[in-house]
């Protein structure tokens, strides 16, 4: 049973890139285009790993993380922020919200696979 | 035009081309088999008002409404009668389908580009601009038609002028 990953990004091209990258390593990939949609998906499905953008309509990445950490099933799950924001302050906010880690856009596909294999053991 | 370039290339490497030959009046003609979609019998058509007599009308070809042109009427050759032996060649020209009515379809021939002679300047039903060569086949001369040019010509008036491919 391959691990399932939820990708949350409002940009279709980023979603597509992340999806292709992760599928190449045989992960099961589900897509959501904003935090709200992702949260709704998480309520009914148990993903092994959530990779989320920060700036999105309806619900941003940090709010999503905070919401997910409130769900028992996601309390321990790896959740990584994939964002263009590289400031320390943003990282601090990410950590505070309960993120496992962060990745900066533009991302390197190889790096993304490394991260995925690390968090998914 | 692509076909012209293709022919130049063909003449250099001597590839053969297939032509469908048909009869109109006393003459034998050939057209590029690649342009033929299918050959079928004649069916009654729906007349279109204010069109020249050689445009018989339109019929339903599996959901497409296609015009039928009687070349015998257009070029005033042969006997324009319609019975169970009347043949319609359905052509595919620039994304369009057009049926032409001829006296009979005879054969499919293979021709090397090198064997094709220049067309006669006159003496055939068609204006020489629609011809591109003569192909000798068993003592007989097949007149090769540039069917695309003929079908999309203003003379036949099958298409709106706006829809014509730009030369």
């Amino acid at each position: 049973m391959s691990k399932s990953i939820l990708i949350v990004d409002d940009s279709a091209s980023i979603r597509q890139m992340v999806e292709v990258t992760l599928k190449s390593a045989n992960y099961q990939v589900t897509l959501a285009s904003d935090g709200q949609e992702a949260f709704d998906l998480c309520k009914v499905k148990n993903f092994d790993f959530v990779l989320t953008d920060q700036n999105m309509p309806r619900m941003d990445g940090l709010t999503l993380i905070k919401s997910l950490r409130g769900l028992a099933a996601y309390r321990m799950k790896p959740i990584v922020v994939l964002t263009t924001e590289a400031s320390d302050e943003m990282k601090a906010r990410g950590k505070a919200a309960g993120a496992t880690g962060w990745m900066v856009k533009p991302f390197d596909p190889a790096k993304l696979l490394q991260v995925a294999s690390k968090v998914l053991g | 035009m692509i076909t012209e370039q293709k022919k130049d290339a063909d003449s250099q490497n001597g590839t053969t081309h297939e032509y469908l030959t048909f009869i109109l009046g006393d003459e034998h003609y050939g057209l590029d088999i690649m342009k033929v979609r299918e050959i079928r019998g004649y069916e009654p058509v729906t007349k279109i008002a204010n069109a020249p007599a050689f445009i018989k009308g339109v019929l339903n070809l599996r959901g497409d409404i296609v015009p039928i042109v009687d070349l015998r009427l257009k070029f005033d050759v042969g006997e324009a009668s319609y019975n169970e032996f009347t043949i319609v060649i359905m052509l595919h020209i620039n994304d369009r389908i057009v049926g032409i009515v001829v006296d009979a379809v005879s054969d499919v021939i293979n021709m090397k580009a090198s064997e094709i002679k220049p067309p006669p300047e006159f003496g055939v039903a068609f204006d020489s601009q629609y011809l591109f060569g003569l192909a000798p086949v068993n003592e007989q001369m097949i007149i090769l038609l540039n069917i695309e040019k003929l079908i999309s010509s203003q003379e036949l008036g099958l298409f709106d002028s706006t829809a014509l491919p730009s030369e």
Partner: protein
Amino acid sequence: MSMDMSQFHGVFIEESQEHLDEMEHLLLALDPTSPDIEELNSIFRAAHSIKGGSGMFSFDALITVTHVMESLFDKARQGKFNFSSHIIDELLIAVDVLRKLLKSYAENTAIDWALVNSATASLEVILDPDCRPEVQDDKKGYGFFKPLNSSNKESSKHEEVKVEDDEGFGFFEPIGEEKTTDKEEDFGFFVELDDNLSDSNIAQQEISNNQDDDFNTEADQSTAQADDSTDQITSYSPQTKSASPSKSITETKTKADTSESSSIRVDIAKIDSLVNLVGELVITQSMLNLIGDEITGVASEKLHSALSELERNTRELQEGIMSIRMLPMSFVFNRFPRVVRDLSKKLNKKIDLTIIGGQTEIDKGLIELLVDPLTHLVRNSLDHGIELPEVRTANGKPETGVLTLKAEQKGGNILISVLDDGAGLNRDRILAKARENNIDIPEHPTDQQVWQLIMAAGFSTAEQVTDVSGRGVGMDVVKRNIESMGGRLEIFSEKGLGSSFQIRLPLTLAILDGMSISVGGQIFIIPLVNIIESVQPQSAQLKFIGNEQVLDLRDAYWPIVNLSHVMDLEPKSSLITEGILVLVETNNTRFALLVDELIGQQQAVIKSLEQHYRRVQGVAGATIMGDGSVALILDAESLALKIDESLKQRVEYDN
């Protein structure tokens, strides 16, 4: 791993074009004095998304410009920035630059760096140069429940956070044994993975989502956006033709930010093949109906009820598939606020644009074809129609002119009008110009006929060729474009009050309710929407007006159009009293169509004649009958052209 990034270009380009359209749209609607925070957020996100994607593809020119834009809107949404109409102009120019750049990347052509630099420079001027865009200043921030342990000397403004000194990748806690000390890493972890979340993080769950952070308000937005009435009307846009001076903008959100969750992109070719298949299905079904009529006995009743069920389902299926191809007119209309804004400045005119009926749906294929003709008509109205403010004032009109774009569905047609309250067409000048250019003029021309003259080839009344609309492309081209879509262009004008250019297009709904009739042994279909009733005329009802025979029915004279003449057929009888008169109403006239007999009502699947043949006068299309034969569908509008002008009864046209 190496990945061919170019495979993702298409999606990115398309997505970015949508973002740019939305940016432009929002900028035009933005109130500089009190910008709406939601709108600023949306513009920020659009810039941000383009920048993010550009980063992946190393589209540096796009990154450069969007970066400054993003900073600017980041500042704006924090209320630290004042807009002005000049700044909005600059931003619109930047959007145009982005469009150009996107096009260059899409077509792989050289990037105009001079353009990039000048656009960036002018945005920099607007933006406070000391601004540090990377810093997102969150007014509330998040409190930490306890200070984070830091073994690292990095410290942020708020807290000490353990991070690598890399650009943005790191684990906060070591993973497994070793610390991540990769200097070029773009990744980081905040907590040790095989460890439970620290108390502080669990405590974070307690923080309510409604903490005042930037986007929470958006979470309440309704998500029911994916249905076909995706219209959102900005708060200050009356959807009526009130003389309100405010700009009304009908906005259609088909954007990712509201409905992408429940929509997918489908290649139009796939939809078209479905359309064709369903068309075939409808024909097969009507063939079955014919066969069903021959069956008798017990089975026939069962068969008939099954057949009528099939008929209903087929029809719904057809309509469903056709509706997939439909897009709201706002797709075209939304480009015009910008056009009007730019042109009115250039021409020193004051113009308000009103858009009505942007939600009216129209086939995607037509949408694309409408852009050019509409742009031409709008430019014409601005350039030649609406007067300069001083001229308007002198004539006792409000100095601000009103240009209205309107779309509505009427019967089987969609009407798209460009209306202005300008000077109207000048009859004398048009006639003079027509004579000058040797254009045929009918004797004692009606106004209608005079207006038609401006659509003759090579006609232009502009005193001087302005660069707005005298580009040598005349109304004749507009007319031709519209006719090639199977539409018609009609002109109405009142001196001093304005003009209206009305494009009438057939709705491309592939099924039409029709009445089949026969004349000279051939079957034709008349669209039911055009039929009032049918009568068998009595000789007492037939009168002559001049040489023309008319039907006198219920206090009105109906000009008679003889279908056998039009279609060049031999009628069953030469006596009108032995035929049937179908009373037909078109958009602006009424007449009685003489046919041999009525056959019955039926649904017809509309097929194009032009696909393989050409347009035929008086004919809107063709359909395939149950027996496989072809019947022509009549076009009542063009049949009306056969009526002598003197007999025409104008149906009141409402503006």
